[in-house]
């Protein structure tokens, strides 16, 4: 009886553990993927703003 209860308890604990592992690992990858996208987008946006600015400066100089 006791061993059956402790077996069930450890099973539920393992089940909880696997949820933590799966969602944890996927979560880390997803959030770092978002950081990756942030870096790429940020660099592109800033670059295009800088390009526009330099073109405007060139035009004014002309």
């Amino acid at each position, binding site marked *: 009886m006791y061993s059956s209860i402790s077996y069930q*308890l450890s099973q539920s604990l*393992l089940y909880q553990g*696997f949820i933590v592992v799966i969602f944890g*690992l996927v979560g880390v990858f997803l959030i*770092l993927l978002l*950081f990756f996208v942030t870096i790429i987008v*940020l*660099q592109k946006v800033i*670059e295009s703003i800088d390009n526009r600015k330099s073109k405007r400066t060139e035009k004014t100089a002309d």
Partner: protein
Amino acid sequence: MEILSEVFKGVLYFGHGDNWKALIMYLIGGVLIYLAIKKEYEPALLLPIGFGAILVNLPFNVVGRVTNLFGIETAEVGFLEILREAGISTELFPILIFIAIGAMIDFTPLFKNPFMIFFGAAAQFGIFATFILTLLILPQFGIVGDEALKLSAAVGIIGAADGPTTIYVGNYFNLIKYMGPISVAAYSYMSLVPIIQPPIIRLLTSKKERKIRMDYYEEKVPKAVKILFPILVTLIAGILVPMSAPLVGSLMFGNLIRESGVLERLSQSAQNELANLVTLLLGITIGSTMLADRFIDPVTGLIMLLGLFAFVFDTAGGVLFAKFLNLFLKKKINPMIGAAGISAFPMSARVVQKLAKEEDPTNFILMQAISANVSGQLGSIIAGGLVIALVSMFVF
């Protein structure tokens, strides 16, 4: 006779109950101090931890929770207990350390190699592998239920190779009893990165793979990117994983101070005075959690062993992930870079560069390794926040 026993009560203390165990703690404290001074293993932390362990095990624990001759705690508290309450229980010390680390980190190499960020995620594999392994083993030690889940989370996080995150998670789950071994494992293994990582890397990679060269482009990163990055990262992490906000927020606050360019004095203070002062107090306070009756326990040995596994799995996870990517990539990645995805900055990146140089003295992959290494810093705090959030679903 009464006068004599009063005078020598400190000596007589060791004869009562399990008080003799304090002598073992002096030895352990001495070993930590020896490793700090002689071997220079993370001396800024191991020395204060070792000394704290000696202090807190002195008769009657007058620096911590003062006890009587029979080891029963009284209402009096000493200065280390006050420090523990103020700095560890409130999680203030790890947060302050993160501000300092943030001010020290330069994300520029990551902006030049953004792809390296995924190694910061892959190298967190050890956290989760150790978490499940600990969960399987703990019932054999009589630890079950919520306590097993909480302890497994804290032991797994040792693999983050990130002392403050480990302390933060351990403290969040109120694991006071295990804080000593958890913190000592985290910091001692961090200092042993140059010894732990090379054999695992060599085992998992071929000579040919270790010789792979990687391109590095010297491009200027606009200042606006460096300023906006910490703000956006804080927003993303804080919204998606609110539990990671204190860690990410403090790290990124420190980084913003650094990159803003208008707070040079504050940035220098965070990198030097703040880092030094908090490290000093953090070390000795961690040492004060190493009370003999808590520390001398089979679970301590288990935590130390599993902490080592976490480091090994992390390194292996990063290397194997790089090898997996190489199956699809035209331009191959040196798989050693994966090992630098752990949070031990910059030791891990240096280890990888050293190994690359051993195979080919003209191979220079330090910048890529540093990119992965700073990503590891981000990955570990996100993993810490996620572990807290997910485990809290089941235990609170």
